[in-house]
């Protein structure tokens, strides 16, 4: 499965170079989910313990937080989709050892993680929508 490195233009090389990537980046979408989750939990806990009367406001705030989290994840996902570049390369598996494969693979993984994080955020919002009291 060895193949010669394809001739690359300079901008390509710059785009695929190692320093431009980081393993952290694929974690950003899940981290957004985590932040949303912790915020929801913390706000619900504090409000229910200290000021149950404020719950309607808290729910509104949490819905806003959900909107924000989804927007962030969407943006991350869109960037990753561009990085994956599936539409133009048609390369789905990125199984080769070239810089370009690695670049697109990280994009692909990030797209998928954005997807699952978005689902996680939506699930995490359901209780806010469905439950109207602390007890």
């Amino acid at each position, binding site marked *: *499965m*060895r193949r010669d490195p394809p001739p690359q233009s300079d901008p390509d090389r710059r785009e695929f170079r*190692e320093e431009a*990537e*980081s*393993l952290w980046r*694929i*974690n950003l979408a*899940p*981290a957004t*989910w*985590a932040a949303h*989750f912790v915020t*929801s*939990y913390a706000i*619900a*806990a*504090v409000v*229910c*313990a*200290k000021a149950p009367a404020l719950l309607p406001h808290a729910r509104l705030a949490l819905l806003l937080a959900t909107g924000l989290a989804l927007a962030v994840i969407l943006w991350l996902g869109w960037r990753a989709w561009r990085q994956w570049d599936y539409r133009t390369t048609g390369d789905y*598996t*990125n*199984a*080769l*050892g070239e*810089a370009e*494969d*690695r670049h697109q*693979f*990280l994009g*692909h*993984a990030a797209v*998928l*993680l954005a997807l*699952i*994080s978005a*689902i*996680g955020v939506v*699930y*995490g919002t*359901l*209780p*806010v929508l*469905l*439950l109207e*009291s*602390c*007890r």
Partner: protein
Amino acid sequence: MSEPQNTGPQGPYPPSAEMLATPVPQAQQERSAAELRAAWAPPKGWRYVTAVNNSEIGLWYALSAFGFMLLAGVLGLLIRLQLALPENDLISADRFNQFFTMHGSAMMFLFAVPMFEAIAILILPALLGGRDMPFPRLSAFGFWCFVIGGVFVMGSLLFNAAPTAGWFMYPPLATQDEGPGSDIWLLGLSFIEIASIAAAVELIVGALKCRPPGMRVNIMPLYAWYVLVVGGMILFAFPPLIAGDFLFELERSFDWPFFDPTRGGDPMLWQHLFWIFGHPEVYIVFLPSIAIAAMVVPTVARRPIVGYSWIVLSAVGTGFLSFGLWVHHMFTTGLPNISLGFFSAASEAVVIPTGIQLFAFAATLIAGRVKMSLPMLWIAGALAIFTAGGLTGVMLAIAPFNWQVHDTYFIVAHLHYTLFGGMVFPVIAGIYYFFPFIRKKMLSERLGRWAFWLIFTGFNVTFLPMHLTGLLGMPRRVFTYPEAAGWGWLNMISTLGAFVIAAGFAVFVWDLLRPKGAQQQMPRNPWAAGTLEWSHNIPAEYWGARSIPHITSRYPLWDDPDLVARMDAGRYYLADSPHGHRETMVTSVIDASPELVQRVTGPTWITLLAALFTGGAFIFPTFHMYAPALVSGAFALVCILYWLWTSTARPPAHEMRDAGLGLSLPTYASGPKAVGWWAVWITMLGDATAFASIVFGFFFYWTSKPDFPPEDAPHAAPELVALAVLALTASWALTLAARQWNAAGRIGRARAALITAPLLTAGGASALTLSVQALEPTTHVYPAIIWALMIWVVAHALVGLIMQLYCLAGSLTGKLTPRYDADLWNITLFWHFLCLTVLVAGAVIGLAPGVL
């Protein structure tokens, strides 16, 4: 970062096809093989126990974990014997409590997690075409800690002194428990958890920095991805438990009322901390098994895995989502419904990535030409059992149903379905699959099938009826039940089944341990697999990979037919050892381009001694013998310092090393290029999590108790807190400055900073200690948690102080120079974290009382 020129890699990379095709002269092959063999020779005779090589440590680790599992299994059998008949009196109620507590604890802490680490230590370097883990002595230290801790905890059974409060030790049952049982659990298992974290650090660094050249992240074996994810999870899941153990032990030893509601404490805090650990733990146990399946399935299907990126996604996604599950286990504890909702939601979400992985495996099998081998049989059994367990799990995630069957045998059944399907079967599959790699012998096909069918049938006979037993209302953890309850026959069936499982394990163990000397030499790659571990020499050599290959695809053994011959000829990197050192290659994180030749450490007694003394420091306090504990701790410290001083980050004799294929690599690195720096980073992430858990505790009390902090409570002296924060921050700044001055060649200044900084550290630590003297920790939870925070910071400051002195000594003796400054980089990293800790703790101790 001032790095002198010419310390980077020099020469062509990646190697061209012609370079790889050039043969290596026979004489050179023989010479270099002899050099390597000498460098990697294992210690002989009774010195064998000083070995630190991953192949030895991993093997011992796996065998001990398996041994503990068999012991815990025997406890399971005894439990079943007692429950076989109504009103049985085979074992007393107290013994029974000890048995189920130790059965659960040993299975989880002495088998499930350590087994992952053992297998990973054993095979990861080979999967990565490497020679060894980056820190062999750290693995050895972790292993010895594990054995000492495990023997101690299990040994308590013999003295009828084992813990009795169940494997999650809920207070107040466990806080008020007489005798040392609970202390043994808390201290013994904390000790093991620390060893687990050490192994996790090592594995993460191994997967990130020790891959062979060219193995970019998109082509590394899936197993390595799982190691990263599981390692990361251990790093965030275990520290909360350690923090919980810390608070718990303070309560038991000194009567600080963290979990005592009469003095403002709250047992719920323990439940939170335990389950922040406990639910990810389920996935920590389960993902490595999936990882094994991810290696076995492509081999069996004889084609590359389908959906590599999808599997990576599921692994990372599960890692995250599983942390959203902790309250899952507390449905019946009266939390606000809305909070429970969040966790119910997360429990449902985690099903998605789990499903994706199973689909990817199914797709691979369907798309391939399956050859049903013994490992695959076990994987298939695992899938069947795990799916059943998953179904009951979804049922349990529905809160009302959960209230119904909470604490009945339904839970016991569900638990064992997930654990057998998600852990025991895949691990056995892994053992069958990797045994030829580990021992260079084959296991018996016939015995394997016997073992499989015995365990599989026995398992279902034992645990399937338990669902019904639970629905009929039999509570778990009861040592007997009345005849009239009508569960007798179900229990009898379960007990009979348990003995069928035991028979299956007996067959398996016999197959594993029976002498195989007469067996013929086996073929080199018996399963015709595609990954690098099967390139190892037969008969076995200790050097790991003969030469470290350049990798360009996911299944190099399938894709590059010349690879193995070239590795054998020493065509690739590091084929020799001109100075007789053990070395391995360090590469960059994303693209694995060569960066460094890392010298790895060899056999030694020091890790064994360090583990013994560390063990003493944890074991003596269970009997309230604090003086011997302190002495033992001091000896442990001396051992560890000696170990670090003599064998880490020493200036090398040769600046560059000819790595082969024209490439010349440096032999020393500091900062982010060095593996040690990464290890500090990762360790500190775990440490910060533990600290965050204690801070969480503070705010938890605030939300759960209306009188926290109490109206008239005395607070810490604010001036002293401020002084402490100032002094410690200044010490941090000086440490950072020392690193920069040293790198710039201004050694005098750097030394001056390293003399002043420890003084400031000592001053800051004293000020913080003094600031809380007016508080009486036994009276109420508020002073107690302030004290706990203070102890945490002061203990870390002391470690930071030792580090500063260590670097000062290094600078004075020539171990640390402007060029060779890895130690200084590492301690600065530690101090970054410490500085953050100090600021947060200062705010909580000094400012929060005014604000709340």
